[in-house]
């Protein structure tokens, strides 16, 4: 199916994070995603049923609508049997430990587990205890690799490249797994990354990940090609990290005024869900020329198809 036979195999059993993946690894996933993206809209998806009779479990310890649905849709398009485990109604709430949950699910012999957890490193811990492949769908403020991949794919499709682009990531960097995964991925592929936000939301020594730090939108957005806006969690808005929503929006919310600082063709991305009027102006978010927010959602399905296929097939090849 993939024309480019020179593609190297993806050499990992799990997809736990972007940190540590090489440019060929990333390009492998991006090219495969791109292939799926190009053929997604066609009615005939029968030929994509690579994962027929494979079992994929979505295990979400944290609430999620878009990521979970996106994985579910991706799995279904590939013909896999998708199971969703909702934590609210499961034994985990009754005090079962993560490792026990992992062992129980492992005994059901799934082919891949898609896991989101509120603690950094939890998905890695779980991956050590199961025989199937594991895809990290977000672990605390650590990593969210499929989100970074879909952002990269969106950028690549709109701008034709990643290398050499100036990319600004704005907002709550400290609590954002999306920011960390994006920094690793876009850096590895040769972009120039800046992070912008109030100092209370910039984690210490973030420069060591290869980014420039700005505390002002004006200087930070100067000539950037891509603006990735991050969601500000409700509980962090009033008083604890920023004094109020209106103060935050005044200085860090993206509106047409601030957008003028960026390159005239700058593209806006947001991992969602958006807080309209907090980090992004409502009208701007809906402007399809400038905002790729809904395109991101489509790319998300393609990226997750690529990841599910890669991880399931790798594990099948390497034996259980």
């Amino acid at each position: 199916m993939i024309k480019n036979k020179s593609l190297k195999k993806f050499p990992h059993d799990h997809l736990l994070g972007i940190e540590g993946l090489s440019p060929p690894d990333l390009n492998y996933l991006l090219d495969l995603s791109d292939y799926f993206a190009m053929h997604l809209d066609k009615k005939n998806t029968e030929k994509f049923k690579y994962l027929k009779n494979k079992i994929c479990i979505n295990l979400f310890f944290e609430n999620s609508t878009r990521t979970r649905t996106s994985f579910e849709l991706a799995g279904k398009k590939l013909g896999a049997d998708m199971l969703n485990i909702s934590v609210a109604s499961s034994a985990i709430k009754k005090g079962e430990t993560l490792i026990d949950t992992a062992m129980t699910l492992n005994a059901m012999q799934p082919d891949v587990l898609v896991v989101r957890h509120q603690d950094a490193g939890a998905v890695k811990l779980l991956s050590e205890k199961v025989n199937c492949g594991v895809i990290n769908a977000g672990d605390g403020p650590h990593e969210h690799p499929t989100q970074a991949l879909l952002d990269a794919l969106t950028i690549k499709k709109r701008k034709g490249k990643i290398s050499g682009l100036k990319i600004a990531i704005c907002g709550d960097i400290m609590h954002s797994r999306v920011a960390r995964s994006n920094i690793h991925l876009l850096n590895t592929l040769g972009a120039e990354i800046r992070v912008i936000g109030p100092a209370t939301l910039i984690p210490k020594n973030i420069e060591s990940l290869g980014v420039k730090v700005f505390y002002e939108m004006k200087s930070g957005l100067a000539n950037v090609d891509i603006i990735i806006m991050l969601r500000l969690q409700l509980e962090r808005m009033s008083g604890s990290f920023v004094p109020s929503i209106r103060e935050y929006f005044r200085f860090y919310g993206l509106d047409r005024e601030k957008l003028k600082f960026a390159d005239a063709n700058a593209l806006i991305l947001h991992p969602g869900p958006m807080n309209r009027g907090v980090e992004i102006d409502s009208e701007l978010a809906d402007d399809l020329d400038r905002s790729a927010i809904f395109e991101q959602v489509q790319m998300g399905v393609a990226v997750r198809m690529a990841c599910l296929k890669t991880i399931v097939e790798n594990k099948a090849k390497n034996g259980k």
Partner: protein
Amino acid sequence: MENKKNFNNNKKLSQSYLLKNCLIIDNGKNKIFKNDIFIKNKIIEDIDKNLTNKIDPETSIIECEGMYVAAGLVDMRVNITEPGLEHKETIESASKAAASGGITSIICMPNTTPPIDQPAIIHSIQRKARKVALSKIFCTGCVTRNFEGKEICELRLMKESGAVGFTDGYKTISNTRVMRRAFNYAKSFDGLIIQHAEDPFLKGNGVANEGEISTRMGLLGIPSYAEAMIVQRDLWMVNETNCRYHVSHISTKETVEIIRSAKKKGLPVTCDTSPPYFILNELALENYRTFSKLSPPLRTEEDRKSIVEGICDGTIDAISSDHTPQDQDAKRLPFNQAEFGGVGLETLLPLTLSLVNNEKIDLLKAISLVTINPSKILKLDVGRIEKKKEADLCIFSISKPWKVNPEKFHGKSKNSPFDGILVEGKNLMTFVRGRLVYES
């Protein structure tokens, strides 16, 4: 099985021993010399050359050629968790672990359940210790009732009952008014206040040292100055009250500097550190290893080097194991949810000797850090080899290599941050009050 073979807790047994040709590390006289030691009726009866002719016929003779004999180790920071959390460690299991590690005096922290905040708890621990413990057990008491940091406990009554110092364990006394009162009050009867220095507000829910590693791993960081800040704050009150003040397990460069200058000024301040802080750094958190989740957290390489310097120049007075047992369920969790702390009784001696083997300090100095120095800080009558004193001894090989394998530990919990590393130096025999309590 092994326990029965190696340990001896027959209290009625009063045997005499002759340790022949041992290399005696005498921190009192500050020299190492070769002699025989004769142990009889719990005490060191004689130290001299060729005692073979002077001993009773029923004496057991132990040939110690090439072995070092030091005073039994004094470990000034041990969390025993009995009463309250006996599934993690009991007085018996901790004292076994201690005996196998060459430690003959354990100073236990008050964070038991209920906490040691009144004399009755001390009595109960001592009663239990007399029955089951292989090593000597000393208690510290809480500074404030139930660690609440509000009202000071019956410090003086606890001292009368045997408390050797006062601390809120893993809790920093954050209220300065309470702290000042505690210093003032303890001063009046020459009490010792021991502080775990970490600003609780800066710590928050932090689990790692704040910096590149915590940022990369997505872990909530604790700024390293959270420690130095509290020490500096307390030193104002020490300066005012002249109360004796000891800082536990220091871990940062800034703390070393502050204590160094306070000592120059002549303030009555002492401090200890623990092996993780001079051997490991924050990179040990790799792969979210929960055994490396300690309080205070592992710091940067620069901090680690400063701690070594602090040990070398005498700023740091003692090394404690900071033994904090945690059962599997408390550590087999995502990093954020896992408990803090690592066990250390069985690795204290070889890790301290690593400073000698790396040529940072000499053997006499290394041994003083785990014997006479902590004993002096706590004003105990242990930690030295002297005629007519109780025979608490640790006989060890300085070069014997072994691999740390917590599965072979004698303590109940196996959460060692040093799991799997190679060390040199091993305790071979331990005497407590003239009894051979452990033999490897």
